[in-house]
């Protein structure tokens, strides 16, 4: 498997310089407020999100995260295979209850995520600016689109079954219908570059139908994802429905693809080389598998209308067909 671009390889600026610049107010802090020269910012510890809790990685390891200019921002948890296994276990435990909620209820919970994101809008704008190295206007567009995307998918929860499900006019005295059902536990390899909008665009269609997700966050830009997990933890999404692992992709993605209790893998955010290898290992338990876009992710427009689709919900459901005789 090709080694993903690793944060550890990036040229790093002197740590003193970065801290000096931040302390002098030249940079915004990660909560979106302007830094004050006379106050030392209280920094956040970025942890994993598993089963509704925020554990540190069992490895006890971390790796450094840099901003787009190569300056140190924070340490992120360097997750492991064991963390993935814990996350899959939590997801498996949470999934039946999540799928059993009414579609109306899931719809409201997804909408609630959008409400809380809106409340933290400034923080996400700041984090996306730092992570992706974009200006404020661009970051605001990306964050606004992320919030709107949750709202859009929230609305699908109680509608997509009417698009994908069917009543089948069989040639016989039977009532026959097909309904979509969540496929179970879905592994999501978040896009490496689009730290928030890309992640949300892939995660929302997975969970809207009642799946539980184990997400491997962007390796070099994981911080918006970790903050998103804090939103999820406080937005009525049951613990374990979304689990988020940060770390070095080469140490993680293969284990997620090979895990025998994962039903589907979304490799849309993986590199083509990684995707080919992941697809091969995912065969062992006949996982449903979504490949990266044909034209590549580099030019993929996450803001475009076509980056959201009810058919992407359909990629992670099973069609169940039911027969019953008609008679007195």
């Amino acid at each position, binding site marked *: 498997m090709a080694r993903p671009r690793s944060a550890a390889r990036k040229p790093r600026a002197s740590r003193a310089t970065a801290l000096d610049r931040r302390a002098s107010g030249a940079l915004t802090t990660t909560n979106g407020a302007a830094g004050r020269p006379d106050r030392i910012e209280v920094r956040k510890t970025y942890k994993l999100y598993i089963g509704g809790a925020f554990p540190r990685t069992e490895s006890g390891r971390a790796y450094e995260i840099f901003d787009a200019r190569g300056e140190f921002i924070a340490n992120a948890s360097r997750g492991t295979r064991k963390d993935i296994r814990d996350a899959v276990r939590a997801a498996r435990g949470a999934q039946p209850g999540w799928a059993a909620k009414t579609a109306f209820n899931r719809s409201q919970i997804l909408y609630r995520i959008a409400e809380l994101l809106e409340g933290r809008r400034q923080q996400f704008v700041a984090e996306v600016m730092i992570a992706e190295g974009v200006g404020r206007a661009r970051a605001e567009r990306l964050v606004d689109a992320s919030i709107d995307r949750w709202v859009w998918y929230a609305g699908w929860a109680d509608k997509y079954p009417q698009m994908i499900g*069917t009543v*089948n*006019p*069989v*040639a*016989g005295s*039977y009532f*026959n219908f*097909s309904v979509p*059902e969540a*496929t179970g536990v879905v592994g999501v390899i978040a896009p490496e570059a689009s730290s928030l909008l890309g992640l949300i665009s892939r995660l929302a269609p997975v969970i809207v139908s009642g799946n539980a997700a184990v997400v491997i966050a962007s390796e070099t830009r994981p911080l918006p994802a970790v903050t998103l997990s804090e939103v999820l933890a406080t937005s009525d999404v049951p613990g374990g429905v979304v689990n988020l692992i940060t770390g070095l992709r080469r140490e993680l993605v293969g284990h997620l693809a090979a895990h025998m209790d994962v*039903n589907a893998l979304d490799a*849309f955010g993986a590199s083509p080389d990684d*995707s*080919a*290898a992941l*697809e*091969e290992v*995912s*065969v*062992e*338990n*006949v996982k*449903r*598998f*979504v*490949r*990266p*876009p*044909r034209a590549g992710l580099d030019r993929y427009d996450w803001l*475009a209308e*076509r*980056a959201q*689709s009810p*058919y*992407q919900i*359909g*990629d992670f459901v*099973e*069609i*169940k*067909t*039911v*027969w*019953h*005789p008609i008679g007195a």
Partner: protein
Amino acid sequence: MTLTKKRETRPATASWGLSAGGIPWEYAPAPEATDHVNIEREYGLFIGNTFAPSRPRKTFSVINPATEEPLAKVAHASKADVHRAVTTAREAHRSSWSKLSGRERAKYLYRIARILQERSREFAVVETMNSGKPIKESRDVDVPLAAAHFFYYAGWADKLEYAFPNREPRSLGVAAQIIPWNFPLLMLAWKIAPALAAGNTVILKPASTTPLTAYLFADVVRQADLPPGVVNIITGPGEIGMELVRHPDVRKVAFTGSTAVGKMIARAVAGTDKKLTLELGGKAANIVFDDAPLDQAIEGIVNGIYFNQGEVCCAGSRLFVQESVHEPLIAKLKARLGTLRVGDPLDKNTDVGAINSAGQLAKVQELVQSGIDEGAEIFQPACDLPERGFFFRPTLFTGVSQSHRIAQEEIFGPVLSVLTFRTPEEAIEKANNTPYGLSAGVWTEKGSRIFKMVAAMKAGVVWANTFNRFDPTSPFGGYKESGHGREGGIHGLAAYLDVSGDGANTR
């Protein structure tokens, strides 16, 4: 071997009200005529609307599993033949089929459906001679359903925009389709009909033991006047199938068969742009509650596991009976087994025909022996088997536990494993305790319980108070290791189209 020794002499017969001591009368032989059927001595590969020998010329024999007599020789395709077939199909897609309007494609498919109906008895007889399945099944199920599939998908060919709004549906190109020996013509129809309706051209590889109705279908293609290269049929061993799957100009792979081979194919497709659907093995649970109409359930159980000699991926091979009705149900079931007529597949009264091959028979025997060795109790009705051919008595195991191989592995033969349960929760737990998830059955008079069970089954098809029903409009396919994608209905159509116009990228 031990199987015959343990066989009980006569089943109880009380349940259908006849005198004790077994069936009081015998059926006279009622053989279906075969003189109207013409099987060639040798079939070449069907590529570009012409039959031609493989290059280098090589053949293998196809036999009648009920008599072990040879039926014909068929071409053994080489790698070069695979390439020739793909090139031909690709050119046909480019130059003719993809340029035809949906309306015109539809008319070709309607023609095929009509010709299959016109020649239905011929197809049924050849199917039975080649597969070993009873003529009453090939005549009443396989052939009519195959024709119905073409008729159904014909109507979709010019309505794709309505099927997938906002998705800009487009044909994929060349589809490689590999099918098994249990429903040779029906699986051909499940594969070819949606592929052609969607505007693809196909290369079909039938199973090595059952290619004859596929080659007979080539004659339907000729009569329907399809443009050359739209339907191509090649025969050969599994490696040839893999060559086809790996060919870089193939855009879609559809496979029905074992889970082990399905995984090999999925690995070969990994990292390509090829779309893939897999319809693999199963180990269906058929669950009978104590309030079920037992006589109806008996018929469903028998149909579930002895239909087509149990050589059905969705066969109801695990019977879960609620403890309180275990005793009466087993008594009725044993009695019913005693009335099943096993023998000449061409006899119109035959219920259970021949196992498809010596190899499959050996596999069934091996698994049945494992059931005996692991301590389950075997029951087989007394019935005479023909001296030649690959026959196996309908078999019932009681006292089966979850860990027995006969409760875990797909047998693909007329062998039923009976287990028990007390509560719906226990039934759900046990039924879902398998890597497979193709089908399930539920028998109860209580409507709310039906829906609870239906929702809980991890299976792509759930039959409630019925079993083994199929229809072109009804999507079919599995959860978990029983495969992915659906065949039949609008869902089966999606599998043959590029619907990535909305940005999604499902394989």
